[in-house]
């Protein structure tokens, strides 16, 4: 009889990893069978990526052992991992943009003096075909979409004869069609005997394509089971540690008055082509107006025009009767508009501290005779950190925060001003379940307080959950506005595709 562990391709035992005061992995065990798709499920910060980065040699474990193919191994660098047949596609792609696809794939792999690109391109093309990863080997990586770049990364791993492919949140950057293509590739790899580790916090994806699932929470493994034996709600419970009580929308109180008003607003994109073509909207007190639409139909421009960072070429806008047409971002803010922009990294300064970022929009209130009052800035930050349950210290650089905590910093900064209107774009993109619930709760709280919330989101579930009225944006125009009661995914889906 053979030892059960010998049937395993990878065995990780008792892995510990500590970063400063944070213990990311606390005695984690993980097994991977040959030819399986294995989900590593957990919230952001549960320790999934850390565990796999240890397996790939990007981090070194403080304690624990790793066996590959039954033999104990020491993995000090990605090079060691690659030699053992382990490859990883991290969330930040390790590609060189000006080089071609083939050059990126053979990088560091070939020996000798002369570079034989013809042969390399041929090899890449045939591997691409075999695994259903369509990509032109001669294309420059900088010209590729995110989805195509991901395919290059996967090809790079396969080119090194990997038996284990680790994918860290691979679907976060993909369109629904690209996700389908990725899943097809993964299933094909499985039939070729490649094991896939699929790191994710998206339950429905895990349910769909994985054979087994290991759930992690707060640095520990909660359990490993066959995926088909679990229901999504059971997995969610394992992941979060308790049944998720989703926030729900309380009924509206009375009919509000108009706070935010847009009339025939036009704007151009960066190339001077009209991107908004006559948008008219009204958002009332105590109301959330959801803007639904497929990405790229003018949502970004709409939020930028409202924030004062993109000029409108025609039309007018008011907040509580005050004209804010082409006002500066500062004037817009003074008029009582709070903004949660689409790209979190563009609304905070990564290299500055949490306290500085919280004070920066109103720095005149934290300074005297042009000198900063650090004690006041710090107290202000401490208050907001406590009030908004942000896991950070005032002097932490924002760069070091998780996406959820970064979004909390932005929310805290906006909401403490009690804005009369709030323009929110993609507020939960990339956030885990609990952070998403938190953000939703805060937006509903503002609605109860009587703020007018304009919610721009590509997440239809989010819109249907929060909005009182739903507007659909298509090709730079609002093509329909309806009360939430009349909105459903099918109807909105058709409108979003321009069918009406």
């Amino acid at each position: 009889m053979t030892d059960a562990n010998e049937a395993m391709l990878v065995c990780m035992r008792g892995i510990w990893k500590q970063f400063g005061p944070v213990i990311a992995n606390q005695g984690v065990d993980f097994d991977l069978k040959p030819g399986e798709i294995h989900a590593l499920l957990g919230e952001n910060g549960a320790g999934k990526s850390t565990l796999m980065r240890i397996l790939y040699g990007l981090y070194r474990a403080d304690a624990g052992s790793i066996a590959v193919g039954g033999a104990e191994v020491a993995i000090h660098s990605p090079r060691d991992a690659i030699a053992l047949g382990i490859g990883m596609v991290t969330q930040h792609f390790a590609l060189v943009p000006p080089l071609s696809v083939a050059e990126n794939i053979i990088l560091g792999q070939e020996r000798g003096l002369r570079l034989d690109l013809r042969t390399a391109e041929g090899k890449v093309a045939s591997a691409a075909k075999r695994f259903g990863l369509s990509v032109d080997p001669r294309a420059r990586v900088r010209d590729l979409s995110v989805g195509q770049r991901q395919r290059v990364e996967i090809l790079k791993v396969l080119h090194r004869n990997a038996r284990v492919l680790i994918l860290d949140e691979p679907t976060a950057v993909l369109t629904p069609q690209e996700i389908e293509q990725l899943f097809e590739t993964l299933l094909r790899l499985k039939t070729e005997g490649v094991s896939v580790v699929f790191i994710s916090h998206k339950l429905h994806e895990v349910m769909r394509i994985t054979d087994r699932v290991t759930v992690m929470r707060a640095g520990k493994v909660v359990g490993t089971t066959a995926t088909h034996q679990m229901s999504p709600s059971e997995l969610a419970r394992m992941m979060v540690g308790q049944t998720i009580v989703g926030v729900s929308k309380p009924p509206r109180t009375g009919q509000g008055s108009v706070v935010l008003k847009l009339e025939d607003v036009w704007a151009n994109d960066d190339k001077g082509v009209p991107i908004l073509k006559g948008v008219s909207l009204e958002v009332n007190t105590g109301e959330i107006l959801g803007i639904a639409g497929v990405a790229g139909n003018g949502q970004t421009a709409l939020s930028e025009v409202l924030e004062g960072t993109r000029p409108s070429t025609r039309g007018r806008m008011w907040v509580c009767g005050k004209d804010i047409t082409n006002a500066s971002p500062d004037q817009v803010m003074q008029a009582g508009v709070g903004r949660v922009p689409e790209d979190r990294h563009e609304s905070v300064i990564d290299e500055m501290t949490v306290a500085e970022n919280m004070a920066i929009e109103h720095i005149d209130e934290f300074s005297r005779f042009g000198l900063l009052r650090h004690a006041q800035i710090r107290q202000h930050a401490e208050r907001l950190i406590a009030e908004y349950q942000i896991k950070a210290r005032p002097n932490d650089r924002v760069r070091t925060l998780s996406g959820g905590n970064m979004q909390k910093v932005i929310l805290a900064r906006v909401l403490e001003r009690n804005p009369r209107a709030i323009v929110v774009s993609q507020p939960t993109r990339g956030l885990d379940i609990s952070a998403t619930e938190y953000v939703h709760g805060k937006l509903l709280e503002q609605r109860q307080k009587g703020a007018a919330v304009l919610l721009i989101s590509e997440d239809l579930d989010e819109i249907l959950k929060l909005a009182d009225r739903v507007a659909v944006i298509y090709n730079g125009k609002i093509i329909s506005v309806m009360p939430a009661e009349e909105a459903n995914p099918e109807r909105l889906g058709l409108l979003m595709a321009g069918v009406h």
Partner: protein
Amino acid sequence: MDAPLVGFLVGLIAATLRVATPLLFATLGELYSERSGVLNLGIEGIMFLGAFAGFAAAARAEAAGWDAYLWIGLLVAALAGILMGLLMALLTVTLGLNQHVSGLGVTLLCTGLSLFGFRLVFGESAVLPRITPFATVNPLPGVPVLGTILDQHLLTYVAFSVLVPLGAWVLYRTHFGLNLRAVGENPEAADAAGIPVFRVRTIALTAGSALMAIGGAFLSLAQLGAFTPGIIAGRGWVCIALVIFARWDPVRALLGAVLFGGVFALQLRLQAQGVQLPYELLLALPYLITIAALAVAGRNAPYPGAYLKPYRRE
């Protein structure tokens, strides 16, 4: 065309190639450094040191009666460049210090070393020490026009017909070149792919600095047969601009060096012809053209992705 004009043009072309030679050496040296992600502002000083070290060694060897004194000088210049390249690599690659500060420091060090060394070797003499410089080679002696244009130093032939094609071949057609480009664009990715980032950068800096020193030595060993404090006269800084003008491509670097060399040679000739313009203006002309060319060609310059960024492992 009338004879004086032909004579003027032929002389201009021949001088252009001569003036462009040291620039081409140094520009290619800088180009390799920058392709690996390191701006080497030591270039001006390293050229100066190359000019001095080459001249001093050649002068001593000549005095000792060695026939190959010029080649010894050239070798010593290259070694001095390698040494400074290693120093620059220690500062910016191993220690990861600021590239601007390190480079300017190396330039100051080289300048001081050379002037001090000159005193030590030659003492204070009223006459400028001189050597017999490299003779030109002429494949077509006596042939009009081509005979004059091709009457050049061996190093000029090396720069134009060996170094440029070789430089392009190494950069685009060898694994080392691919590694070099990857290291200069995205060292994290290169490291993850198993490329020794620190070693590649050190090699690029060292080889590049050797080329800069040879460029400087061309001036003292071939062009002048002497060493003066003003021998480099900002040519190193011009090369920094030429690299940007060349968009980090060896063949375009040749064009840049010829453009600058051409304007430089032209203004010399205009001065000699007694053109009614202040000579200060004529002297400034090549530099003004450099700025203008840079303003046009440098727009949207494809700087290497890791330009100026020291690489540190997590």
